[in-house]
């Protein structure tokens, strides 16, 4: 499939057209291509910028989320004026400014088993810029079921991974990791911290893989997992084999099977509270009320504040040096901003100091705040 270039296109994409590997025919392929980017966040922002600049004719953007101040450190499509607006919509407006000769379709909705297959069918290539396991497995399975190549990128603190899945019978994400991590071991990844430029390095390389698929040039990273460490600037590549039974298991699903899949449950996100966890309502009822110790692990500047006669503050950094302050008969409730630090501290105290009278606030003060 190809689409004729206008006189303006020839000038605009001249630096592509004069490359032997692209040429007029290649730029026409780019113009005819339809790419769907899931998530307009850290990875999606740079990938979208370069796909739009390259002249990809149709770009879809799926994101239900809203721009937050803490996104701006890495999500370079957004400005402070966009805070509170839907990411897909804002991204689409900026991309239209950058290139008004291509079609950009924002989908300001959550990707679900109900809409994924219909959406994927309208595009040639899927780019995964999501930030949680539940959506990543959903995206992988929908790409398999609709037969679309999937350009995968993922980040953690200073490290990134890139691969292309479901490309010409190559491996899928499930061939690499058949099952999500054990429930509770991985919380919301966007809350762990990340060096802002990292998704730029990874997202631009996702755009590059998408362009190579469109242009049918070079070596697409199918069957290879690229690993990158921003601290050492080291890359390494590990080969991935097809695990046919994993692919077959997904492909065996009917559309109805898929629509009834609960990916949140599969990824342990809908887990009930464990015996070590309490929720915000429970904590609220305990403050100033019962004889327990509520320990706020956060730094002084983190908001909202948690106040009460039975609340004390010991920052996470202080804990290793003051472990004896935890040796107490009273029940201890650990509280932090998102639930990650409290979880780490509880496990540390249980495993290394045999303390077993500790519970944590699930979801941290961010969940407390929302229900408050």
């Amino acid at each position, binding site marked *: 499939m190809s689409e004729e270039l206008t006189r303006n296109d020839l000038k605009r994409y001249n630096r592509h057209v004069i490359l032997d590997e692209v040429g007029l025919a290649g730029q026409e392929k780019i113009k005819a291509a339809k790419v769907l980017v899931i998530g307009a966040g850290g*990875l999606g922002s740079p990938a979208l910028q370069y796909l739009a600049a390259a002249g990809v004719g149709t770009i879809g953007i799926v994101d239900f989320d809203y721009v937050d101040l803490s996104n701006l450190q890495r999500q370079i499509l957004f400005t402070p004026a966009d805070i509170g607006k839907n990411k897909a919509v804002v991204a689409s407006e900026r991309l239209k400014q950058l290139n008004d000769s291509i079609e950009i379709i924002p989908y300001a909705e959550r990707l679900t088993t109900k809409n994924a297959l219909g959406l994927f069918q309208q595009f040639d290539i899927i780019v995964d810029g999501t930030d949680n396991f539940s959506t990543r497995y959903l995206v992988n399975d929908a790409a398999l079921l609709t037969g679309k190549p999937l350009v995968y990128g993922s980040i953690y603190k200073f490290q990134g991974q890139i691969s292309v899945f479901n490309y010409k019978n190559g491996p899928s994400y499930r061939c690499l990791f058949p099952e999500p991590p054990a429930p509770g071991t991985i919380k919301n990844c966007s809350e762990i911290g990340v060096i802002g430029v990292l998704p730029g390095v990874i997202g631009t390389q996702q755009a590059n893989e998408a362009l190579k698929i469109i242009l049918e040039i070079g070596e697409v990273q199918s069957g290879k997992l690229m690993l990158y460490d921003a601290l050492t600037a080291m890359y390494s590549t590990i080969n991935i084999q097809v695990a046919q039974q994993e692919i077959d298991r997904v492909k065996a699903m009917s559309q109805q099977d898929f629509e009834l899949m609960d990916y949140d449950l599969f990824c342990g996100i809908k887990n009930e509270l464990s015996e070590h966890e309490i929720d915000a309502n429970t904590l609220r009822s305990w403050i100033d009320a019962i004889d327990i110790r509520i320990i706020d692990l956060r730094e002084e500047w983190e908001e909202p504040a948690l106040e009460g006669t039975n609340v004390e503050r010991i920052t996470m950094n202080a804990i290793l040096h003051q472990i004896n302050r935890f040796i107490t008969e009273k029940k201890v409730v650990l509280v932090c901003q998102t639930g990650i630090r409290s979880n780490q501290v509880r496990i540390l105290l249980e495993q290394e100091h045999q303390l077993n009278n500790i519970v944590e606030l699930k979801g941290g003060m961010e969940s407390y705040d929302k229900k408050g």
Partner: protein
Amino acid sequence: MTYSIYYFGKITEHTNCNYERLNCELSTVKGMKEALLKKYPTLRNETFKIAVNKNFIDEEILIANDSEIAVLPPFAGG
């Protein structure tokens, strides 16, 4: 045997290093996993995959001396 082991992502929070040389008996991937869990007990809650010389190999294959081992957790950030 001496193996070069590279740890990635969240795994390094358990090992406190991203690279080490490990001297141990000739091992399979499965044996290596057990050795790592013994050395770093908190790893038992983590999901990870072990690659040997840039390939994921069968759990029962013996790992040659001087092999390069990568311990890879999944990560989902974006």
